[in-house]
């Protein structure tokens, strides 16, 4: 189970090397690429990154564990990240969360057994004006209601069929 960066990512990394005075600055972009490639960041990926940018793996590992957006274990394909901060909490986040728990059959911090869904609660997504807000992978869903959640799930089902 070894990790290899795709040709495309390797090219990106080489291009980025020119941009920074120290290759250690590539830790974050490399971690992102690894996560997009595999869905999570494996220890093998950390070793490979360390090798690529000449940085001890421990330093990469520290960075990877510091940011909550990096996953060191595999998680569900569709990651629902519901904002739990003030505006969203006031505008009905609780109801949305309850509905998500019902529909997905998992609690925050968990992934579904079929590997399709993951649920977590996050801090302010910076879109308080459209609370309650959720980020699903890289997309924002705003002004959420239980009905909207149903619609989102339906569209995902469609995608899967």
């Amino acid at each position: 189970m070894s990790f290899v960066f795709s040709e495309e990512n390797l090219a990106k990394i080489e291009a980025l090397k020119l941009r920074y005075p120290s290759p250690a600055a590539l830790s974050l972009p490399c971690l992102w690429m690894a996560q997009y490639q595999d869905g999570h960041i494996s220890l093998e990926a950390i070793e490979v990154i360390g090798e690529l940018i000449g940085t001890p793996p421990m330093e990469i590992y520290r960075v990877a564990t510091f940011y909550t957006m990096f996953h060191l274990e595999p998680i569900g394909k569709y990651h629902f990240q519901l904002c739990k901060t003030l505006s969203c909490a006031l505008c009905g986040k609780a109801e949305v969360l309850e509905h998500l728990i019902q529909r997905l059959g998992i609690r925050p911090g968990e992934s579904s057994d079929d590997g399709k869904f993951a649920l977590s609660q996050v801090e302010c997504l910076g879109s308080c004006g459209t609370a309650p807000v959720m980020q699903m992978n890289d997309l924002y869903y705003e002004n959420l209601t239980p009905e909207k959640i149903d619609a989102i799930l339906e569209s995902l089902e469609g995608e899967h069929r």
Partner: protein
Amino acid sequence: MSQIEIVIDEKKYAAQEGLLLIDLLIREGLKVPYFCYHEALGADGNCRMCMVEIEGQKRPQIACDTNIKEGMIVRTKGQMIESVRRRILELELINHPVDCAICDQAGECKLQDFYMDYGLYDSKIDQAEKVHHKKHIDLGSNVMLDQERCVLCARCTRFTSDITKTHELGIVGRGDHARVTTMPGKKLDNPYAMNVVDLCPVGALTSKDFRFAQRVWFLTSTPSVCHGCAKGCNIFIDHNKEKYKDERIYRFRPRPNADVNGYFICDAGRLSYKELQENRQLEMLIDGMVSKEDEAVACYHKLVADGGKIVILADANLYTEELEAIQKYAHILGAQLCAPLESYRDESFGDDWLKSSQRAANAKGVEKLGIAQILSTDPVALLINFNHPDGSKIKAQKSIHLQTHQMEGKADLVLPLAPFSESSGTLVNEDGIEQFCPKAIWRNEPLMSAIEWIDLLQGGER
């Protein structure tokens, strides 16, 4: 840089401009609490314990990140700074498990000291609310980690990243969940690893070899020099004599010496106290039979009187004073003296930091005294061996061994010799630095050093 004057707690001090304030405070013995700063690791500024008040500055400043300037007025005492310290300490201790009673660091723990000096508040945090971490992690290399007791000063991680450059340790996670660890599946593994135990200001890193063997306040520390190799790292021998028992060594610790070992020692040297105490030669043996002192001395004189060529071998770990005495004695006996240094070479041991491939502590001393180093292979009538490891290589009809530890092979006479910890003297390290080691261990029935043996054998009183 120029010499300047600054005022600390109403007193004037002269110092080099630009010196770190914390270095001056430490040097002058002024009390200031600190976790993360360490002379060997430099400033990291993460613990915030070293706050002092500097006149003209709005907020308190950390002494480990302040360079001194002419006319600076510093206060390390006073209500304001003490309340700041108390709050920082309280923050550091938020998730501390308060299990000092069963912690091996108790008695030499900075957290305990600072709490008694500056804390003394009542905790606002309930035990049940604290964030818990793992308590017994075997990091490897005899180092045990208790993540809950850690104050995240990063001394241990800076040691593996900046000093050994082996990068095994790191602080992972964030906030309440930040903790020291190795990479999953990896171990702390370098020849100097156990230094992190001394660096750790609290009970988070303890030595698997020493923990729970003794409470530190029962130990007596005697300055000495490691005999593991020719580097001559400075150590403390920590020992204790329990009631009715013989005095024992419980650990070696590094003793700072900028000219030799800095603040550190290697793990092999640190653990060499064990070998020192094991397999000791405590009895006098004639033909392998335990005998009394007068019999042994009579036997000795008989063997010497029998005549013929005598070779004396001397261990290059003996103190210079002992070597000198042996040299004189050899002259009187008309014996050939040699101390082959080749026997101690171990190329797999040396590195480019402290560890030397010459593993005899006083090899330089032997050279300085001009003692021959060639191991003679001609058959001789009598060998008198002062603890040299290659005694069995000499073809001698008769042999007398004065030895600290039991050795293979047969000897006509064996006399027990006091090891370095049980006598005193000077060593010359590989860089030519002379270092004196006082006697550390006083046995219930003391053994004689080489000098004492020679005195006795020449007709002196014991």
